[in-house]
């Protein structure tokens, strides 16, 4: 089980990786969304704001109305933000649940694929 602080540390690295990736910034330049993440085993919430492909902020808790809501275990969230986990595989097995429009689900997966290609 990952703690809230571990997930926030992972988010900090995720923000750097995403914002420094030119290819990803180009692909996501028209993507402005608010994302909520729920760690299902600890009931911790996290909010991330993306503006034109740039992660401008992240914080613990639920802030505002989201466009995307991701439910996963704290371990999976942590591994996903560190790039140690293929979210598609977990999603296909129903272990990560995403509530969003299909194009946003795709964009979310695209982030992992671009910054940590297999």
């Amino acid at each position, binding site marked *: 089980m990952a703690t809230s602080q571990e997930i926030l*540390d*992972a988010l900090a*690295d995720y923000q750097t990786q995403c914002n420094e990736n030119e*290819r990803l910034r*180009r*692909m*996501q330049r028209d*993507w402005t969304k*608010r994302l*909520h993440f*729920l760690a299902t085993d600890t009931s911790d*919430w996290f909010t991330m704001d993306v503006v034109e492909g740039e992660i401008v902020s992240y914080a613990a808790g*639920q802030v505002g*109305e*989201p*466009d*995307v*809501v991701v439910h996963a275990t704290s371990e999976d969230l*942590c*591994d996903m933000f*560190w*790039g*140690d986990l*293929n979210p*598609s*595989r977990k*999603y*296909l*097995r*129903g272990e990560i*649940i*995403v*509530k*969003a*429009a*299909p*194009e946003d*689900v*795709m*964009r979310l*997966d*695209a982030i992992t*694929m*671009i910054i940590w290609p*297999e």
Partner: protein
Amino acid sequence: MSTLRRAVGLPTVVATSAGLALATVSLTANVQIGLSLPGASGWMAILVAGLISVMAAWCFAELVGLFPTAAGIKLFIEKAFGERAALIAATLYVGITVLIVGSEAYILANVLAFAFPGIPKALWVLAFLTVMALINMRGISLSGWAQDLTTYLMVLVIGGIALWALLKPGAPPIPEPFRLGSGLNLAQAIALGVFLYLGFEWVTPLAEEVTDIRLIPRGMLLGLGILALIYGLLHVGMATWVPKAELAGSPIPHVLFGQAALGRVGLLLVALVSTLASVTSFNAGLMTASRFLYAMARDAAAPRILAKLHPDWATPWVAILALYGLSAAMAVYVLRSSSYKLFIFLGAAIECMIFVLMAASVIRLRRRMPEAVRDFRVPGGRLVPWVVVGLYSLLFVLVFVPNPDQPADRPTQLGALGALVGAGLLIAAYVQWVVPVLRARLAATERAKRRRRPGAS
């Protein structure tokens, strides 16, 4: 609990369920259902097929309530019967749906060539497929309100034309609307009637966007009701206004009906509805299929190249191009052979097969996960899922049973059976021998990769 900023409500769920099933090829198939039945009585087979689809919809609803995800059919089967069965069934289902696109493009080309003579059918096919592929490549999908508008417009136009044609002064009397004919003919008509509803279950990915998961079963039921009503009205209208021999020999019976009942205005209105029906169903079909291929590639169940994303639009462009090529090849095949009926048999059979698998998954998962929270339960315990398994297994067989009253269909039925078995075996072999190789390669890459998470081994 977080509620999405732009959550989907009931009108959009209904519009998506009805709109995705309402394809041009369904309007043509509508006539095929009644060819072996007397007069206009085919509407009864359409209604019965719709009623029994309600039971299948309940099964889908229970599974969506259990796993509210767009991963849908593959995930349901995987949880019940394992990954191998899920990969085979889902790939077969998505693959055959893509093949049906060939018929869709062929029939739409016939509609447009009839409405606007002078432009070759092949050009219409190519233009339609290319435009749809480009729209998908750009990542443009119908927003909720656009789906609502197109579906309800199609329903109003088809229902309105059919009602007007049947009720207007001087309309011919409806021929034998309640005479059933032989048992085999009726049962086979019901089996083919299943094809008309193919796609209503594609609403299940909306589980990730709805305000309340219970909207999915409600929306599917209302969608099925709308489809049964307008398909029934259209069937009676066509059988009343156009001689059966003429309907039987034409790939565009609905256009002939529009013209017979309302002249040039009717023809153009039906052509408009056909185009809208093709655009909505094909766009959604291509989007679903390309994302399915992308997800399979990301999961090392398909070649990695299919997971390539467009650098500007974040769409799976290689998967879209592959499906575009397959659809175009199918459309050319249908254009050359005019064998669009093969895909109606194939579509009806695959839909029956998927319904059987969904009901069987409900039964299996009730045993495996009895305590899991279900937002919707099929009423009547296990009776309904078992009825669905039995009924749709029977209808599946009936799709291929030779009918003495329709000897011309026999080669088509055999062709459809051969295509289904061949595709099934090919996919099973792929899953058995190729997927493990792809998975082993991915596992080797992952083993070689250093974990980034601090403290992780």
